[in-house]
Every structure is written in C-alpha cells, then in structure tokens.
C-alpha cells in the first residue's frame, strides 16, 4: 500500500483534520502573542497601543511571578510525590484478595469524578474550616488547638486537596500494572531467596516504572494548570502564598484588567510548561521504550 499514489491520497485525506487542528491551536496562540505585545487594559477600551516586550518585562520582574513559579513547582512536585507513592501503596493493598474487592475498586475511582470546585469547597468548609471543620473537631477532641489549614498552610492544603483528586487515578493505573506482573517472576524471586522487601524493590518497582511514568506525565500536564481549587478556597492568598502561574495570569488579566500583561503571562506559562516537559522526558522518558 505504500505506493507514491497511496501516500498522496493519505496526505490529502488527513489534511482537513490537520488543518482544523492547526487552526484550532494556532489562532488562539497567535492572538495571545499579539495581545501580549499591546498595552491593553479593559478599563481603557479603545486605547490599545503597541508596546513591544514591556508586558513581558513587567510580568517577569513582578515579585509575584517568582512566588507563583515556586508555588507551581511545589504544587506539581508535591502532588506527584503523594499520588505516586500513595498510589503504589494503595495499589498493593487493593491487589490483595479480600471480600468486597470489586466494589472497593470501583469506589476508589470516585474522587476523580468529583468536580474540582466541589471537592475544594467540601474540603474547605467541611474538613479544614477552623470552626466547623471535621479536622477542627478532631483536634479539639484530642485536646489540641484547631488549626487554620487554609490560613496557615495554604499551599499544603491545596496540594492535599489536589492529591485527593489525583490519587485514585494513579492508584488505578498502577493497580492494572501490578496485575500484569507475572506471578512466576515473584515466585522465582522467592525461590532465589528474596524477602518481601527485596521482591518489592527488585521486581515490583521496576515493573511499575513504566506505568508510573505515564502517571507522572499525564498528571503534570493537568497539575500545571490547577486553578479551580485555588479560586474557591484561598484566592491565591494570603498574599501570594498559594498563587500559581495559572492563577497569576487570571489575576493579571481579570482582576487587574490588564489583558496585555495576562497574555504575556500566558506565553511565559506555555514556555515554562514546555521546559518542564523536556526535563521530564529527559529524566523518565526512557522508561517508555519497550
């Protein structure tokens, strides 16, 4: 089928889809770049003027940018750590035979289907609220002072909420990987004198590395753009303590009405996301080669 004729036909036939996709991505990207070069404030409509790279200079020299950059990395890194380690442990647990295994496995995925705004509000009002929250109640029952989670540890609280959403995703992917581990390999290791821990680290962990890579890559894409959890709980505060880059772009363009600055922030976020992606692929991409 690989004749010159069939190749031309194939190119012709995929071209509508390719063109549509290109337009879909290139038009918004082009407009963002265009806006990022304008002095464009929503409070002064009709006064747009070309300013070159000023928007980038303001965005990058804003102290909020460094705070947001650090928070973004902490958020992504923290959630990845909790979900992969926790996911492996939970997957090991769910891989055991127990009564009601099927139901439990289905229920495990439930948090993933809860909308971010809903889960964040539930965590904020029902768990972490220092007056009415379950944690406050628990602390009081133990004779401790209630802790104001979102006020005193805002970034950690958000990491916790986001991890709660993503833990089931990691668990399920790792569980399926665990189930594809050849029983005979474990038995061979057992015959070879490997104890439970040695079997876990020498056989199970290497076997899970590919699935864990998939989890890390997919989660990173989504975690770089966490927004709803921050909006409904801390609004990025106190100060910039829980602002990530996505939230900063929102604040710039819609709270300060500076569309030009927001667009510049958006482009910076795209560049940073690509840098993170390149680093990740360098570090763990080799796990994906069969």
């Amino acid at each position, binding site marked *: 089928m690989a004749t010159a004729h069939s190749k031309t036909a194939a190119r012709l036939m995929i071209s509508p889809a390719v063109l549509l996709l290109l337009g879909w991505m290139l038009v918004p990207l082009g407009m963002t770049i265009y806006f990022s070069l304008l002095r464009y404030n929503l409070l002064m409509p009709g006064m747009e003027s070309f300013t070159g790279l000023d928007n980038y200079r303001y965005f990058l020299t804003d102290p909020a940018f460094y705070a947001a950059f650090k928070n973004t990395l902490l958020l992504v890194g923290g959630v990845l750590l909790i979900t992969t380690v926790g996911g492996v442990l939970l997957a090991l647990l769910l891989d055991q035979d127990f009564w009601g295994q099927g139901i439990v496995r289905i229920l495990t995925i439930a948090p993933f289907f809860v909308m971010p705004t809903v889960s964040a509000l539930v965590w904020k009002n029902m768990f972490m609220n220092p007056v009415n929250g379950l944690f406050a109640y628990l602390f009081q029952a133990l004779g401790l002072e209630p802790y104001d989670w979102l006020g005193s540890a805002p970034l950690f609280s958000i990491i916790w909420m986001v991890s709660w959403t993503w833990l089931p995703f990691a668990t399920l992917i790792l569980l399926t990987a665990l189930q594809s581990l*050849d029983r*005979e390999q474990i*038995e*061979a290791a057992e*015959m*070879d*004198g*490997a104890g439970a821990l040695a079997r876990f680290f020498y056989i199970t962990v290497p076997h899970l590395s590919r699935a864990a890579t998939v989890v890390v890559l997919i989660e990173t894409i989504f975690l770089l753009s966490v927004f709803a959890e921050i909006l409904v709980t801390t609004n990025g505060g106190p100060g910039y303590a829980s602002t990530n880059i996505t939230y900063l772009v929102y604040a710039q363009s819609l709270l300060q009405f500076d569309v030009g600055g927001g667009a510049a922030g958006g482009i910076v976020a795209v560049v940073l996301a690509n840098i993170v992606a390149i680093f990740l692929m360098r570090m763990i991409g080799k796990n994906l080669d069969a």
Partner: protein
Amino acid sequence: MGSITLSKITKTFGPKEVIPPLDLQINEGEFVVFVGPSGCGKSTLLRLIAGLEDVTSGQISINGEEVTLAPPAKRGLAMVFQSYALYPHMSVKKNIAFPLKMAKKSQSEIDEKVTNAAKVLNLTEYLDHRPGQLSGGQRQRVAIGRAIVREPAAFLFDEPLSNLDAALRVNMRAEISDLHRQLETTMIYVTHDQVEAMTMADKIVVLQAGRIEQVGAPLELYETPRNKFVAGFIGSPRMNFIEGHEAAKHDAHTIGIRPEHLTISTESGAWQGKVGLAEHLGSDTFLRVDAGPLGELTVRAIGDVKVKYGDTVFLSPDPSKIHRFDAGGLALR
C-alpha cells in the same frame, strides 16, 4: 546431597482434593520425571516440594531434614519455570547473579560464579543483553544459569521445554541431560510429554489425578506397565487395547499390544483389517487399520510399507509382547 522424601503428603484446594496421600522417595543424584496428562497434579506436586504451595498434611524432608513448613528460599532448591520467569529489566548477568546477591555473597564470588555459569551455558557473549533480546532457547539457558549458580540440593523443572519449537526441544533435552551428568545433582522434571520422560529420566513417576500410578525406570514402565493407564500413557503411538472375545482367548478382560509389536502382511496373519490412515515417514510407516470387531488398531512398521487407503492387510501380534489386564485395569502377570 539432594535426597527428597515425601511422606503421606496431601493437598486440597477448597473442597477439591488434588493430591491424595502420596509417598515418594527421590534419591541423591537421580533424574526423576513426573509425567501425566494435564491436570494430574504433577505441577502441584513440584510446587509443594519447592514450597510455593503449603501441603495440607504430611511431611517433606530434604537430606533427612524436615522442611514441611520452611519457606522456599530455605529449602536449598532451585526452580526453572515454564515461562522462564526471567527478570525483564535486568541484564542476563544480573539475572544470573540475583540469587547470589540475595544470599549476600561478595562481588568477586558473584562475578566468578556468573562467568563460570555463562561459560557452561554458552551465554558469555550475551551477558549484557536483556532477556527480551534473547531467543527462546537462550532464555531457557539463562533460567538454568540462574538455577545452577546457587548450587542447590536439587533442581526443579516445570515443563521447561514446552515453549520451544520441536527442533530446539530436542537440543535442550540433550543439554539438560548433559548438565545432569556434569553436575550430578538431583533433578526433578515435570512434563506431559512422555518422550521427554523416556529419554531423560532415571526414574519416571507416572501420575494420574494426583495418584502415583507407577514408579520405575523408563524401560521398566514400557515393558511391564502396572496397569492399563501406564500402558497407554507410555509409548508412542499409544498401545492398542482389545476387549471381548479376542481378550478372553488370553484369559484377560483386556489385552494390549503396542503398534511396534504388530507385524503387517498383505497375504496372511492372525487378524484381518482395512487400512484407514497411512502415514509414510520413510523410516517408519504408521498405519491405522480398521480390524472389524477388534476396533481400530495402530501399527508401526519399520521402513516403507507399500499399502494405501482401503487395502486389505493382515496383522499378527508378537505373542510374547501381549499385555493382559483384568477388569479393573490392573496388569495380569
């Protein structure tokens, strides 16, 4: 080193008894083959010896020491699995070194043993390859290498050749036999293939439904099977069984005659029949003959016999090679 004694061991999975009380003595240095049809419990028996399954009752001892409750690693046995169970993310070298590393041997000792094993098994140039890059036969050898570096009391093989193609199987059969002569270690080998059993074993254990039907040297089983099951299972093609009037002539419920002990002639003989299927292999001819009231008989003739479908032929059994069985299937002597 390397005698294994099983006394009155049983195994049940839930309500199902897989192995009824069973006794077996395996002597030092023997090559023992467990053979039987699928589901006869031969793999389970091997796994009980290995310690991968717990016995329901009874005792296992290795070298006179009781190991019934000991974990697999403490029994000093090495096993080669049907799927080879190599560790896919480790190189051949690390695979072979794994048991030594687990035993916390020094690096120099590990290197020396791995090098020796690789030399014996012709794996030297593949030491840095991953299992995925090797052919079936090479993987098989890596699995054996991983077993021999431990210098175990006995080797356990669980249908190790069933994933190989026919030609390679013949080679590996010879290699494993050679290895046994070199190492002089006890080997227990599970297979459903009676050719492997006949060619490799010092002692064959024929199993059916968890029961031992007969234990003996290959030719002993061939010449004096204890019952109809062993008679039918050992030997290829299968023994022909004849019941009724013809059997009664020999004072038996059933008589058995092996295909190679029937002489074929186109002129005269004891039994008359029509050729059904004729397989001409050059060196041998296998014929399926419809012998009327006697049923279908398989005949093996040396060389090429010029008969074809539908021809009338005469068969004569070698009277000294007729096996007689009673109604319960036990051999009459």
